[in-house]
């Protein structure tokens, strides 16, 4: 082996060690939620194409068959400011086209059938920007961020505050996080279709979490979140959609991480139990396997297969055939997202570390069906979504 190739090999290993050490500072922070600030700046970009399957012609009475096709471009900068503080800037730009369910009716056999929005479909863009800072103390971290998102017919402004504290010899971290969002909607073609001209809603969300290191190889986190929404919660683009003016949501999440030394791999498992006062309950469980392959190839590569199962019950006021003869103020919605259903997702991601550059590429397939539901489905929705997405991302650290 020549001197140069030995030198290059040592240099490469040294660079990886430095990266691994700086990564350790970052990941310890994310493992415990309260630790050291980042030691280097990282710029991340990610582009994703999200595509919903077309509906079949026998499922639709009126409108476009093609549903949403969305391109999402995300940006993030994380940079140290002082020894004890860091700055984070996030941005995203989404462009959307396609059609959305407008109302439901019965076909000649009395079965529910969906009617999609007009033949011209929907075109919209969404831009979001948020900026935040973190301050790190010996055992505490304080985060504050503000942001704004804008669509052609929707604006949201939000603020988020977080605090974490480590105790028990840094084996346990408790955290509290609060977010307030003020949203405004001003539907397009409001006069033409007799839609509400403008409306607003406010969401206040609080989460409490406890993370605990179980042993050298595993950690567990449990969290409770409560979200209250008040204001206009209906969908103004549906022909008949009336929902209550307030909603309370409760979620209990549990996460477990374990590292398998011999396999050089980590298993992630998450479970969420959810309930809201629309009458919806749900279970979400997902697993991902993070397999390192650097033993077999000359650079750091990880592949991550994942699977997710979701099931929910229906809202108290969900119907799969709109009833236009009922009291117009009585809660009623045929939105498929309020139906009882189950969904199965499977995905895979590849992550390559090339010194200061990381490349991530992956895809996911998700299919929602009434028959996947663990809950009783008395009124199956005809508009459940099947989607695929592919993405590629780059992270550059300096």
């Amino acid at each position, binding site marked *: 082996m020549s001197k140069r190739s030995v030198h290059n090999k040592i240099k490469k290993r040294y660079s990886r060690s430095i990266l691994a050490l700086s990564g350790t500072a970052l990941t310890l922070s994310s493992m415990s939620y309260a630790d050291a600030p980042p030691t280097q700046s990282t710029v991340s970009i990610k582009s994703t194409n999200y595509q919903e399957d077309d509906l079949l012609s026998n499922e639709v009475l009126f409108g476009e068959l093609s549903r949403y096709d969305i391109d999402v471009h995300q940006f993030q900068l994380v940079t140290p400011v002082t020894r004890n503080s860091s700055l984070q800037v996030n941005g995203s730009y989404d462009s959307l086209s396609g059609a959305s369910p407008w109302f439901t009716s019965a076909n000649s056999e009395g079965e529910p059938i969906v009617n999609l929005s007009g033949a011209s479909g929907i075109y919209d863009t969404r831009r979001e920007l948020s900026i935040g800072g973190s301050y790190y103390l010996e055992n505490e971290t304080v985060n504050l961020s503000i*942001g704004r998102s804008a669509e052609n017919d929707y604006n949201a402004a939000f603020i988020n505050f977080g605090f974490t504290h480590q105790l028990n010899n840094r084996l346990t971290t408790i*955290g509290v996080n609060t977010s307030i969002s003020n949203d405004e909607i001003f539907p397009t073609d409001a006069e033409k279709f007799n839609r509400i001209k403008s409306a607003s809603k406010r969401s206040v969300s609080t989460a409490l979490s406890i993370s605990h290191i179980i042993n050298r190889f595993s950690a567990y986190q449990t969290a409770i*979140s409560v979200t209250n929404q008040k204001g206009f919660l209906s969908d103004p683009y549906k022909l008949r959609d009336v929902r209550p003016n307030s909603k309370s949501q409760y979620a209990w999440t549990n996460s477990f991480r374990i590292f398998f030394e011999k396999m050089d791999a980590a298993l992630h498992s998450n479970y969420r139990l959810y309930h809201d006062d629309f009458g919806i309950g749900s279970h979400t469980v997902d697993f991902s396997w993070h397999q390192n392959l650097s033993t077999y190839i000359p650079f750091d590569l990880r592949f991550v297969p994942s699977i997710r199962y979701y099931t929910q019950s229906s809202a108290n006021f969900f119907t799969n055939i709109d009833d236009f003869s009922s009291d117009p103020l009585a809660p009623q919605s045929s939105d498929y997202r309020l139906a009882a259903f189950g969904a199965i997702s499977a995905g895979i991601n590849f992550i390559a570390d090339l010194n200061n550059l990381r490349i991530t590429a992956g895809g996911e397939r998700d299919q929602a069906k009434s028959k996947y539901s663990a809950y009783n489905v008395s009124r199956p929705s005809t508009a459940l979504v099947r989607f695929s997405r592919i993405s590629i991302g780059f992270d550059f650290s300096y």
Partner: protein
Amino acid sequence: MTLIQKHILGLLVLLSTLNLTACVEVRAWEKGYLAKEEMAWNPDILEDALAKHIFFSKEASSGSSSAAGGGCGCN
């Protein structure tokens, strides 16, 4: 016992098991595996944000260990 009650019971058993194993002392220099990026709660922040946004807009449920951010016209 309903399906939901069975799920809750199963979770409580799981949590109790984890608590029993939670008494091991782990020193700072023994946290090497825990510090690996693949052991982070959210190894890819952008992917996590996007996945949450997609499922938030396609399902009725939301909520996690962090509070929800800004709303969107998608839900």
